[in-house]
Structure formats: C-alpha cells, structure tokens
C-alpha cells in the first residue's frame, strides 16, 4: 500500500532515475487509484443523474408543494405547514381509498403469482409448438390497458353485462359490480390479472429454465412425482424470482390507476367511493378540485405506504435468505 513498496514496482523496467522526484510517481499512482475507485461510479452516474432530475427532485418538490396552498392554475400560495396532511389524514376518503387500494392489490397480486407459477410450470413441460404457447400468454400484456378496461367494463356491466348474463344461466343472482365495493374490487383485479399474469409467468419460466435439470433427474430416480418435484425443487429454487415479482407487483399494485379510472363512465371511483384508489383520490384533489397542495400530500402518503410495504418485503426477503 505504501509508496515504499509500490514505487519500485511502478518503475520496474525503466532505467533507474534517482533524480526523478517521487511526487510525480505519486500523482500518476493517485490518478490510477482514482480511476479504479471512481470510474465505476462515473459509469453508473447517468442513471443517478437522471434519477435525481426525474425522481428525487420531483419527490422533494412535491413535499415542498404539499406544505403550501397551491392552485393548479394560479400556482404557489401561502405556506401552511402540515395542514394538508392533517386534512387528508382526517378525511374518510383517504382511508377508504387506502382500503380499496390494498384490497385490490391483494386480490390481484396473490392469485396472480400463484397462477403465474402454475402456468410457467405447465409451459416448462414438453409441449408441442412451445413458442406459440409461450408467446400466447404474453398476448394480453400487449393489449393497451385502456382497451382492456373498455372490454371488461362491458363484461362487468351491472344489468346487461356478459358476466351477469352467464351467472344468470346457472341461477346466480346478478352481482352489483358497480355498487358493491368487494365485487368492484374483484372486477378490477380481474383486469389487472388478465394483463399481468402472462407477463409474470414468463419471468417465472425463465427462472425455471435456469434450474439444473439433473436435480429433476435425481428426484425422478428417487421416485418423486411431478407434483412433489414442483413443490420440493421448483418452488424453492424460484424464491429470489418470487420475491422480485412480489416487489414489482407491490409497487405497481399500489399505484393502480388506469383500470379503476376506466371502470365506469365518470372515472371517479364510484358514487360511494367503492373503488376509489389512492391515485384516483390524488387525481380528484389535484385535477377536479384544483388543490395541488392536498394532492401532493396524498402523493407523499402514498410514497410512504409503498416504502412501508417495501420494508415488509425486505424483511420477508431477509428471513427467507436466513432459512436457506
């Protein structure tokens, strides 16, 4: 490390030159050290510079806005401190939207991950026209969410919808998709699942193909059936991927907007806030009521909720890593 040991190595191969001041060697050496130490940061810096501009700055600016009266058109007003947070937290709409958001998130993410793994396992087996089937599950992902919402809002129409018509055939009472909160959450979660299950299945499929095949061969010799193999080999080997999918679908799920917004003709989350999510509440405050201060407060609270869920995910990740 010290110059005493390094200097000779650096000058090896050159003719000895006692006149040369050691300082110059030190400089080039220092530059070299900087190169090694700093370059990696320089190479990844474009991401962080971009993040600072498009992520960090808006985040902090939103916090600034949330502490002022802020009209959408007239801009900044008086400083009000945490008044907007106090209002939002004290208003039932916030808690109802939080409930709806979490409910829709659970109804979409949990079945989605389970079905996606099963689907991936089926796609991983010996199928004819394998690529066709694999591409097939991705098809819903290609369809624009707006189009999906339009189709599903017709399917889930309360009185003349296809789903209720089909339920009527088997003698089930029509479900009030646009009145009952839980029913509306199921309908919206169905749209989300339709779109994302295939996508997640392909991620799982990629991870499954990385599992060494000899594990299955040994299991086969030991007499393990397909189901046993799935639960004792495939699922444990997929853990990191499951965590990845869980985290991405948490972030996406908590920010859900398109599907609930297009679920009825008004896009306000129902007359009784049945399917008003946090993002819709935010939009309503900011764009219908022109109150950017309150909307920013909701944006920050949503951010904190996502961070909280992220920390829970992290804790779960750690625990799984420990048990391995």
């Amino acid at each position, binding site marked *: 490390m010290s110059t005493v040991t390094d200097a000779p190595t650096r000058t090896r191969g050159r003719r000895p030159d006692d006149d040369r001041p050691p300082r110059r060697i030190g400089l080039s050496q220092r530059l070299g050290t900087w190169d090694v130490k700093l370059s990696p940061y320089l190479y990844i810096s474009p991401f962080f510079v971009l993040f600072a501009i498009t992520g960090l700055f808006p985040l902090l600016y939103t916090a600034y806005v949330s502490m002022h009266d802020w009209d*959408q*058109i*007239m*801009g900044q007003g008086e400083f009000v401190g945490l008044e907007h947070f106090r*209002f939002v937290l004290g*208003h*039932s*709409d916030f808690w109802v939207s939080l409930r709806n958001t979490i409910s829709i998130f659970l109804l979409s993410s949990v079945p989605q991950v389970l079905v996606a793994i099963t689907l991936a396992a089926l796609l991983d087996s010996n199928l004819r026209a394998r690529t066709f089937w694999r591409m097939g599950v991705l098809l819903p992902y290609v369809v624009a969410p707006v189009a999906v919402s339009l189709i599903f*809002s*017709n399917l889930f*129409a*309360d*009185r*003349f*919808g296809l789903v209720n018509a089909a339920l009527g055939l088997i003698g089930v009472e029509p479900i*009030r998709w*646009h*009145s*009952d909160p839980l029913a509306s959450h199921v309908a919206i979660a169905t749209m989300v699942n339709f779109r994302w299950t295939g996508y997640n299945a392909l991620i799982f499929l990629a991870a499954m193909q990385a599992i060494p095949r000899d594990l299955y061969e040994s299991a086969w010799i030991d007499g393990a059936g397909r189901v046993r193999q799935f639960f004792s080999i495939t699922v444990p080997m997929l853990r990191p991927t499951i965590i990845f999918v869980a985290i991405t679908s948490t972030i996406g799920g908590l920010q859900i907007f398109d599907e609930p917004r297009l679920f*009825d*003709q*008004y*896009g*306000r989350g*129902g*007359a*009784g806030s*049945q399917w008003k999510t946090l993002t819709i509440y935010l939009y309503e405050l900011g*764009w*219908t*009521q*022109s*109150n950017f201060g309150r909307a920013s407060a909701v944006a920050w609270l949503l951010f904190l909720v996502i961070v909280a869920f992220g920390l829970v995910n992290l804790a779960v990740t750690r625990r799984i890593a420990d048990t391995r």
Partner: protein
Amino acid sequence: MLIGVAGLALAGCAGGGDDDAPDGQAGGEGGGGGDQVTLTVATFNEFGYEELFEQYMTENPNITIEHTKADTADNARDALRNSLGANAGAADIEAVEVDWLVEFMQYPDKFADLSSPEVEGRWLDWKVDAATTDDGKLIGYGTDIGPEAICYRADLVEAAGFPSDREGFAEWIGDSWESYFAAGREFVAASDSAWYDSAGALWQGMTNQIEVPYETPEGEIIAATNPEVRAAYDAVLKASVEDGLSAHLGQWSTDWAQSFQGDEFATMLCPGWMLGIIEGNAAGIEGWDIANVFPGGGGNWGGSYLTVPAQGDHVEEAIALAQWLTAPEQQIQAFLAKGTFPSQPAAYEDPALVDSTNAFFNDAPTGQIFIDRANAVEFQPYKGPNYFVINTAIQDAITRVDVDGSADAESSWAQFVSDVEAIG
C-alpha cells in the same frame, strides 16, 4: 401528414364550390397576412364543425386547422386546466362547457378578450352574460345551448293506454314537475317500463331551474343549506325510489347506453344535443318522439363556448376563426350535422332551422320545438367557481340512492354535506 392536409384541402374545394358567398365575407377578414398559419382547435363530444373547418380552410388558404377532439367534456376540462397551469400546450381555440366556464372565469388573464362590436347582440342575453366578467371582458363566444324538451317512447305510452301523439302527450304530462311525476305514477302502474332513465338526469333538469343553487355571487357556498336544493333532492329521490319511476340507470354508463335497446323507460329529459345520442344508442328501435313541453317551464342543460387562451401564438387569427364559427349561419350548419342548437337568436328566423325535422323522432319539427323551448328559458342559474365540484358531489349522492341502492336519501345527503365541507 402533408398528403393528408392536401387531401383535406382538395375535398374542401370540391365541397365548397356550391356553398354560398356570404360565409366567405365573415371569414375572409381577420385571417389577414400572407403567412401560413396553423390553428389548433380543441373540442369534445360533437360540435358538428368538421365540414365547417374544411370550408374555412378553402376560403382562407393561409390557414390550416388542426382539430383535437376529447372523448368527454371532463377530459377536455382536465386537459385545459393542465395547459393553463403550465402556461403552455393549450390549443388556439379551446371549447369550454358551461358547467365549468365559471371556474375558468376566475383566471381572465389566461384568456384573450373576445369582445368586439361585430359580435354585439349575436347571442341570447343570458348566454353572453355568463361569459362576461364584471369589468366587461368577454371570455368565450357562445356555440350551442341545450334547451330541454321531453323525448318519449310513443309506442310504450300507447301500449299503456295514454295519449301518445305529441300534443296529447304534452297535455297529459303538464308543465310542472308534480304533473310530470303524477303522469309517471299512472304510467308505471300500467306498464312494465320505468318512467324515466335516471334520477341523475332529472337532477340536471331540476337544478338548472334554481336561480342560485350552490353558491351566491358573493362567493358563499350555500349548497348544503339551500332549501330549494334540498326540496328538489327530496322530490327527485321520492319519485325515483319510493314511486319507482326511475329505471335506476347511471347516466352515460354502459348499462344506460345498452338500455336504449330495450323497453326500460318511456321518457327522457331531452336537450337538443341529446337527440343524436338517443338516435345512436337506440338505433333500430322505433317509437321515439319528442314533445314540445318541459316540466317547470323552460330549462337549459349544457351548451358550450369557444375560448381563445392568451398563451397562443396566433390569438388574432384564432379570434377570427372563433367569430366565424359562432356566426348564426355556421351554427345552423352544425345543428343540421349534429343537433347542437344555436345560441344565436338570428338563427331562429332562418328557415333552415325553423323547418328542420327529425326522421328518427317520427318526423317531429325539432327546429320549431327547440326554438320554442329556447324562448321558454328565462334565466341561467348562477354557477360559481365550485359549481362543477359541488354538482358532482350531489350527483354522486343521488347515484348512491338511485343506482347503487347503497344509501338512503338521508344518509347520502349527510355524505354530500361533508363532501361540500371538504371543498377548500
């Protein structure tokens, strides 16, 4: 893109040949200059301007018009708010709906002053007054208005044993809300169909007859304490739920649009622009007619303005185009194309409007009917800056009771009161 524009211009030439010259005079001026100018026009729903744009471009070769059409008025409102907030991105001409005109009147500096001697006396007084600020600045040129009549299914009314011809029907339902509801009670007792489509739709008719519904001109919010609002709210919900007159459909919902294909309800409040919507939804259904009557006298529902945001690069040219589009001759063309009823009294003497009939509505003389309905409108309710938000909240309250059935009138009103309190 270039080819498309050239194609439009050619099509305009072909169609413009037999158009009369007087239109050219109105448009020729003000377009001015020899430079090529592109004007953007943002509208929503149906304004019926497509052919007029081509005509204007033919007559003013230096003007190219680009038309953006939003699917709903709400989306157009959000987009305009965004552009004004960012001080960029607005179209040269922005269409504004009367229900949210007032909130934009709060920001007169964001819009060009459109007042000009040339357009003096062009519109109905109340139409102009609503777009004029206290110090005399005109924010928007009136396009259409929504005088209301009653559209009805003559076949269902006849089957239930009531007079179904236009005059007999109008006499039967009378000209007050009480008589309209009374006729409805007789009807539902004799028919499987409901009397009207949606309590929310009726609310639009009733609230537009309250002179000062939600906010006073001084800026005080009185929606939750105004006895007139409460009385109308109770009346419409009693008729809808207790008397079972409503088909319990949320207006504009998928169910609502589909219900036109069945025999769900017999009558509808019917502003001029609704004719096209009924005809579209009820395609293939026969029996629709329209009666020259409206409960509570006259009523206006909707109607729009053309504004010119001050941020645009071609304010002068945009004003010239807006002036031309809202001239009576052009607005009659729009009416014939899409049923948007002119807000310009001069148009009411034009045979093209007076003699117009509508084949879908049993050849009813719709031109004359809506002229009568427009003349019956005495005032326009005062709409303050929070009108849109408050009206949305009370519409939600009515929907909870009428469509969702998730609350009774009393608890839903309580929720409305708390929603109004949260405005700030």
